[in-house]
């Protein structure tokens, strides 16, 4: 019981600090924090299908791209507010996600094969969008740049600060949703499937249905982040939005932070983004190509060697926040 209260206090403290932080730091730091929050949110969304339900998806940039393109195209072509486009993006991503999951799991494509199949769909869609003239193909899709005098929350046109608070809300929302789901029937089913699918099946859990549900939810959540990404970046190219590198980025933060944990994706996003920024700062003084990536790779190696289960479980114990089980 004591841990539960301490965890609640720690979470409230985190939320308050994050909410007040932009008042005290420079715009540069805010822009870095936005990158952190994007990484955290995408990681949280991915964590549902891989961390909770145990299905390794290596192609989540697909859903980022679907969300981004759906909302951006509806905005640019028809002037629809991004919130509507976001719903469309969620629906499309959920549909595509469940289709991929249903196809794979129906044909019992699991484990590594499933992971490679998600990469294949990701890459295939990227190349399709490269040739999809109506949304700009390789030359990209551009959103009219905002007039920054007043933040327009309805049209998502405004200052970085507005995006910061949107993303903070999104990330805290995802945290709440994950917490809620893990303590519901569906969350326990997911964990049972993750730990031992055959045992779960033997207990009468409709494994197929719950795995597809995890993928659909994860894809839809990812698409919401994609919509914000489109309106924050104001430009979309298939080769960057759908990049397989983005899929890899999405999954490194939660793995580093602690796969399947509630706070792992957020912690991982902080660690990796800060690390990346620090490397950029340091290596810019040397002007050596690749130094940044080298240090980044070495840091990944170090973390996976020392804390293969992720940083959050370790930090949680250190802070005395670890509950009996998770």
């Amino acid at each position, binding site marked *: 019981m004591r841990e539960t209260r301490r965890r609640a206090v720690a979470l409230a403290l985190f939320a308050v600090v994050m909410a007040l932080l932009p008042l005290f730091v420079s715009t540069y730091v805010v822009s870095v924090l936005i990158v952190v929050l994007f990484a955290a949110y995408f990681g949280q969304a991915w964590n549902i299908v891989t961390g909770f339900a145990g299905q390794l998806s290596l192609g989540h940039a697909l859903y980022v791209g679907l969300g981004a393109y759906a909302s951006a195209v509806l905005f640019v072509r028809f002037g629809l507010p991004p919130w509507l486009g976001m719903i469309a993006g969620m629906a499309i991503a959920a549909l595509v996600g469940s289709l991929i999951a249903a196809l794979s799991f129906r044909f019992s494509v699991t484990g590594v094969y499933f992971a490679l199949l998600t990469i294949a769909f990701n890459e*295939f869609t990227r190349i399709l969008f490269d040739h999809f003239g109506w949304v700009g193909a390789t030359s990209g899709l551009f959103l009219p740049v905002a007039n920054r005098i007043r933040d327009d929350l309805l049209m998502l046109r405004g200052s970085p600060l507005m995006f910061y608070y949107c993303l903070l809300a999104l990330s805290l929302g995802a945290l709440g949703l994950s917490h809620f789901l893990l303590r519901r029937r569906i969350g326990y089913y997911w964990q049972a499937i993750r730990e031992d699918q055959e045992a779960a099946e033997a207990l009468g859990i409709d494994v197929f249905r719950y795995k597809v549900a995890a993928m659909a939810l994860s894809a839809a959540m990812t698409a919401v982040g994609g919509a914000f990404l489109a309106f924050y970046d104001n430009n979309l190219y298939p080769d960057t939005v759908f990049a397989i590198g983005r899929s890899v980025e999405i999954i490194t933060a939660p793995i580093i932070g602690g796969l399947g944990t509630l706070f792992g994706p957020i912690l991982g996003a902080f660690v990796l983004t800060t690390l990346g920024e620090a490397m950029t700062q340091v290596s810019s003084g040397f002007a050596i190509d690749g130094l940044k990536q080298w240090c980044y790779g070495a840091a990944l190696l170090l973390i996976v060697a020392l804390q293969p289960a992720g940083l959050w479980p370790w930090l949680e114990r250190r802070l005395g926040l670890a509950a009996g089980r998770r």
Partner: protein
Amino acid sequence: MLYLNIIVAGLLTGAVYGLMALGLSVIFGVIRVVNFAHGEMMVLAMYAAYVANRKTGIDPLLFLPAATLLLFLLGYALQRGLINRYIARPDHEQFLLLLAIGTIITASLLMGFGPDARNVQLQYAYDSYEIAGVLLDKVRVLAAAGALIGVAALTLFFRFTRTGKAIRACADNQVGAQVVGLDVKRLYAITFGLGAACVGAAGSLLLLLIDVQPYIAPDYTLLGFIIVILGGLGSMSGALLGGLLVGVSEALSGFIIEPSFKSALSFALLILVLLVRPQGLLGRGA
């Protein structure tokens, strides 16, 4: 006739792809680790061959044995020192480990050579043979011949040598192999070394055909995945068949549809095979 030319060129390139993918397939088939740093290791071999060519003028074909040995040693050391500790860990941890290794390789190459594309100048680069009206580029023929020799050598090794048989025993039943006294750790290290040696050879051969640049690595990792899944992960002849298939499909789609579409067709093939026959064309039942 034009189509025949294109198909033959695709087959020849595909043989090199097959050798590269064979490494991936062997590693997965025995150790059950997906080598996400496969393309990076091949690019490393390409740079080794490039440097050797630059410094001494040696033909990448003649440098091939050295590159093969180099990559074997690298693979052996990596498996012994690092990867071995992760073989029983969850997929995502192995993924992160190999991602880190791949990142470090690419970054090291970037530090050493910069992002520019490099190639080797060969005197016979534009020679070709003509057989019954079909034009064969000399470089492609040599590369394909080298690849087929590599595949044959590895197949013979697994079939006839004691170590090769022991490795196959490990792949079939790891516990059983331990029970009869095989040094599984060492055999795994040799296997990873052999897998890496395949990309050492394939990299030297591919340098005859394409320019090398640090960032092409992930494309070749993906290509390797496509091929081994087409052929069947863990199946040796499947890797070669998959390589030939992808080589031809790339060549044809680049010509008929559009060059930028060539990998889309490969991915479409992959999706189709995964859904219809997930164990691959020549793979054993799952």
